[in-house]
């Protein structure tokens, strides 16, 4: 899908993606010549179709995780399907590393279904590590969620 500014005959450039949380998606595109901005709004079914392909409009915000689509999208996954203990020592998600989780953040993480929890934990930890954040708090999780577009996580 591409957008053309008809007046300028220029391909519009992707600007921003927003996931309001109701299953829809908004993406804005801007004409490099005249600056006009348009928003593409997709309904839940269209948004789901994009998610089904395992791609993200606006580009990937986090590296692909193992079984990412399955873990994000399967509704009937078993709680004990994965053993996250296989993470190498020293990985950012390791509790004994330099990164810590506040009790509130741990509580919030515990509410994430186990089927997807390990993957979510790793994404938040990598986010914090890349930004030099020493402790993950609910505020950090909120910021990461908004910046990375972690809808459904």
């Amino acid at each position, binding site marked *: 899908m591409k957008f053309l500014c008809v007046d300028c005959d220029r391909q519009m450039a992707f600007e921003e993606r927003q996931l309001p949380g109701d299953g829809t998606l908004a993406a804005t595109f801007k004409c490099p010549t005249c600056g006009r901005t348009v928003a593409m709004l997709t309904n839940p079914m269209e948004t789901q179709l994009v998610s089904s392909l395992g791609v993200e409009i606006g580009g990937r915000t986090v590296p692909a995780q193992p079984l990412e689509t399955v873990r994000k999208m*399967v509704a009937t996954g078993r709680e004990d399907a994965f053993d996250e203990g296989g993470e190498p020592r020293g990985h950012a998600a390791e509790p004994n590393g330099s990164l810590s989780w506040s009790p509130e953040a741990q509580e919030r993480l515990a509410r994430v279904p186990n089927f997807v929890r390990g993957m979510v934990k790793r994404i938040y930890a990598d986010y914090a590590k890349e930004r030099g954040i020493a402790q993950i708090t609910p505020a950090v999780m909120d910021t990461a969620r908004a910046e990375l577009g972690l809808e459904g996580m």
Partner: protein
Amino acid sequence: MPPIRTYHDLTDADRSGLSEQIGAQRKRVAERLAKVGRVIAVMSGKGGVGKSYVTAHLARALARSGRATGVLDADLNGPTIPRLLGIDHSPLPTSPNGIEPAKGADGVKCISMAMLLDDGAPLAFKGPSAESFVWRGAMEASALRELLGDVAWGSLDTLLLDLPPGMQRYVELCDILGAPPAVLTVTIPTAESGDAVRRAMRAAVERGSRLLGIVENMVGEQFPGTAGDDLAREFAVPVLARIPWHPTPDTWDGLGGRV
């Protein structure tokens, strides 16, 4: 208004990079399978002919002969391979490198949706239920891609893919792999089975798959017919095995030696 340029006329770099994302997915699969000697799709186009049963026992026979073997249960909605390989539901070790496959009878590595779903639960996806037919196929194809590319198969001589009835999963597989896999066909002796399997084999030939041969399953008085021989003659491929109702390990070892 002058004619508007077409999609293909617009070639500016796209920050979404959707084609690059798709390319990265395929590269991930290719890299994962680089250490797999051969990928064989076990298919029939007909339900109830014993594809999974044949796949599991063929895998065990290959493993017993010293060949590192894995099975990907591509029947996402009716997975049965773990039970056939005696695999329980122990959690699968996970790391950023991928998901470790389970190990079943005779050391066969295996991944199956049965290991990931609640006991007895159907494969259901989050998302809008209205018009789910539009996206469900794409979701299942993505799941198949991830089972291929995100499982740490390691070095394998053979990876068997147990396909569900019908042709959809085979077509998805060709797209994901970027090349058609070799195909092993399973039929029962009846003419009805032969009719369905013929269509599947024809589709596989048209896609460019190499037909390895036919396994005729459930051979005995219960299912009279000559579907195996008929299909073998028509497609110029061998009948690799005729599996009786009560096969012995020798039956499977014989098949393993011919695949």
